[in-house]
């Protein structure tokens, strides 16, 4: 036998890109998703700069009432809440948008607070609650879905029935009921204590009420995986459960969970806004986009910007997260598009 030598004109095949890199590449080529991600990043960056705007530019405390305050418009000092001077002189109207970043850019609310500064601070809370509750929800749902789907039997029955019970309640009704109780008494679970009025109250509630909506499809996916040949082979070869989970099940479920995160963030942000609008979410003096809409409700006729601005931000941010979520789904689970969706 002669010696085998490599032909200089034949190169070894390039190592194929991993599934994550492939997905990222696919996501990067998805223009709508990238535009949505860019917009979302812009919103996040703006909200993170809230203290910079409030302290460095507007020089205002967005959480302190300034009912008797004044500001400068066109070089003149004017009251932030302006008494009517026409007709019978009834009513007091907050100053409208001045388009001057240093002086009530988007006007004032009925407490004489800078709407722009409150929008930025409110955005921080809305996004924080939306994102953290989505992550917590997906984590809890993943654990429950994987355990129920993989273990089967009585454990699956118990977990599934508990999820069914939660599912049976209308989401908003359940969230409002829990909010009313927790906002009055706070939450105490062993060493875990959440003060009434804390941001963690809406986070915990919103995360909890959506768990069944994520856990059930994950459980279905795990049941399907459980009967795949390579998993049966792994179990048959005596691999411990933890190894099967770690090496086979979790990596297959993880893309689905990741697809859920942006979609649930959008959904949770909308839920937070609804709860805050109903005064059972973020509590004053904290702000969120939902509380700002509530603040503006009494000013719809005179200062609609107080309501429209946070409403627009909620709509645009939710749309951006949904488009991004679709992009992530297309990238991580191309088959889902053919099947018509993730769930």
């Amino acid at each position: 036998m002669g010696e085998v030598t490599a032909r200089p004109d034949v190169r070894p095949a390039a190592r194929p890109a991993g599934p994550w890199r492939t997905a990222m590449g696919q996501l990067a080529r998805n223009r709508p998703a990238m535009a949505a991600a860019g917009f979302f990043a812009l919103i996040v960056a703006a909200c993170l700069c809230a203290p910079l705007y409030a302290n460095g530019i507007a020089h205002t405390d967005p959480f302190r009432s300034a009912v008797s305050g004044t500001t400068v418009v066109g070089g003149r000092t004017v009251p932030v809440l302006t008494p009517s001077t026409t007709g019978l002189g009834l009513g007091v109207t907050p100053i409208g948008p001045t388009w001057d970043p240093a002086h009530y850019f988007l006007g004032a609310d009925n407490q004489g607070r800078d709407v722009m500064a409150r929008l930025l601070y409110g955005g921080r809370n809305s996004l924080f609650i939306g994102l953290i509750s989505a992550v917590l929800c997906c984590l809890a749902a993943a654990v429950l879905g994987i355990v129920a789907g993989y273990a089967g039997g009585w454990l699956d029955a118990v977990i599934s029935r508990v999820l069914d019970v939660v599912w049976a309640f209308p989401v908003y009704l359940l969230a409002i009921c829990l909010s009313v109780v927790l906002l009055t008494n706070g939450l105490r679970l062993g060493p875990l204590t959440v003060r009434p009025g804390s941001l963690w109250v809406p986070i915990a509630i919103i995360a909890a009420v959506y768990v069944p909506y994520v856990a059930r499809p994950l459980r279905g996916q795990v049941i399907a995986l459980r009967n795949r040949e390579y998993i049966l082979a792994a179990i048959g070869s005596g691999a411990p459960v933890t190894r099967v989970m770690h090496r086979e099940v979790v990596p297959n479920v993880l893309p689905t969970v990741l697809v859920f995160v942006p979609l649930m963030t959008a959904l949770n942000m909308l839920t937070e806004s609804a709860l805050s609008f109903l005064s059972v979410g973020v509590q004053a003096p904290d702000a969120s986009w939902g509380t700002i809409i509530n603040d503006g409700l009494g000013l719809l006729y005179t200062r609609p910007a107080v309501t429209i601005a946070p409403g627009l931000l909620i709509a645009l941010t939710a749309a951006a997260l949904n488009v991004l979520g679709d992009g992530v789904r297309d990238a991580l689970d191309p088959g889902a598009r053919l099947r018509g969706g993730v769930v």
Partner: protein
Amino acid sequence: MPRSATRTVLVTGTAALALLATACSSSGDGGTANSTSTASTSTSGAPAAFQSAHKGGTLHLVAKSAAGSLDPQVNYTLQYWQLYQGMYDGLLAFKKVGGQASFTVVPDLAESMPKVTNDGKTYTFTLRKGIKFSNGKALTTDDVVASFERVFTVSSPTAGSFYNGIVGADACLKKPAGCTLPKGVVGDAAAGTVTINLTAADPEFPYKLAVPHASIVPKGSTAKDAGTTPLPGTGAYKAASYDPNKALKLVRNPYFKEWSREAQPQGYPDEIDETFGLTVEAEVTAVENGQADWVFDAPPADRLNEIGTKYASQVHVSPLTAMWYLTLNVNQAPFNNLKARQAINWAVDRSAAVRLYGGTNLAQPVCTVLPPGFPGHTDTCDYTKGGGATWKAPDLAKAKALVKASGTAGQEVGIVVQDDEVNKSTGEYLQSLLTQLGYKATLKPLSANIQFTYIQNTKNKVQLALTSWYQDYPAASDFLNVLLSCGSFHAGSDSSINIAGFCDKTVDAQMQDALTTERTDMTAANTKWGAVDQAVMAKSPLVPLFTPKLVDFTSTRVGNYQFSKQFYMIVDQLWVK
């Protein structure tokens, strides 16, 4: 109306009857800021003659919600007290005219003002003849006796405060069922007289006989709250139907014949309906569009400028004898500390509260419990920057120093407010202010239906609440004695109108002294009430914010608007034709 003129009405004379007679001669005042209203009250305070050309039509009123029971001896709301003026009568009535004369008490079902004997403890009335209830039954002395007993059997909200001085009332208050007042209210059918005996002279008793809880209803009326079932009355109108979820409809009482134009004038509209369920925004729009004639609820803050500008001729602004105030629970930390309470009084910017209410044309900052112009009121202000007789500005530095000195900084304070726009925004302002002072303040907006009873019950441990008080009748005691006496504080009860839980023996003795003095010398008594007011403010159990004005918004077709200072707009005297 100048402040001094009000005093003339209420302080002249040495007894209640003399006081009332004097009041008749005070000048009339439409009470409206808007000159376009058509007051049909003569300058002497006498009602104008009926103008039959304007008789007829249906007056459409709108209100956000119904006001509960239709029973005149149970309901305690302005919403229905206004309507009761045309539906029910008592032995006496407040004059149904606009302006200051509306504080005057005149004979209604009684032929004349009562004969007062026995050192002011016995009132004898002679009933008018020929008056019938809306069910056709003739009014008798038995009905009068039964009505006063019914005040106790139905546990009327004021049974224990207004009518507890009637002989036998004590027993009825203890055991309302089957209440009889054989020595307290005595009817003589043959003579057509009713005699009311009191345990002690009460110069304010005529006022108490002129409010709806003293309405005369037929003997045999249900011994329980009549609820949505209308009770027959003697007034110009009767309730034809009442569904608290939909509407209340009043039609003419077929048995009514006008006996006293100043006590119970015949009304102009043939029908009056009040529809429930619209939002206040929608109510205002309905009046703008001519779909309704009057909005019961206060117009929303962001519509005030619009209606005051575009619909100025339809807007009527009237000053009220009322007070918006904060109660500071003197039995609950941190406000069981005098310095902490005084700090709040120094810190609160009354101008801010006025702005949030609708501006200086709708409210006036106050420093005292008795509203400006009210009997006993004196212009003093203990808590204003730089001192002075009237409020100028808050002193935040002094307030912060007092909080520090009280050692209460950092404590949690719950602020309980109603959940409507004005109350909530005032609550938010207070929360911000308390945070500035170093407290951990939380805001608790509650539905208007429950907030007022919630803050009264000590079990709820309310520390600070925003509320308001509108006079029942024009006497200083109706503010100071009712709101701040030991007798008005009932721990654990939903009916503890002394919300601050203030009970100071020295101040209470001062109040009793003023009440005693009222029997003989009203001028001296009012001076004493002024001193009580100052003594109360030194202890700071409450923070007076402002005295409000009322905005009535009527449709273009409505005429003859008259504002009674006692019961506000006289509904059945409006023209819709």
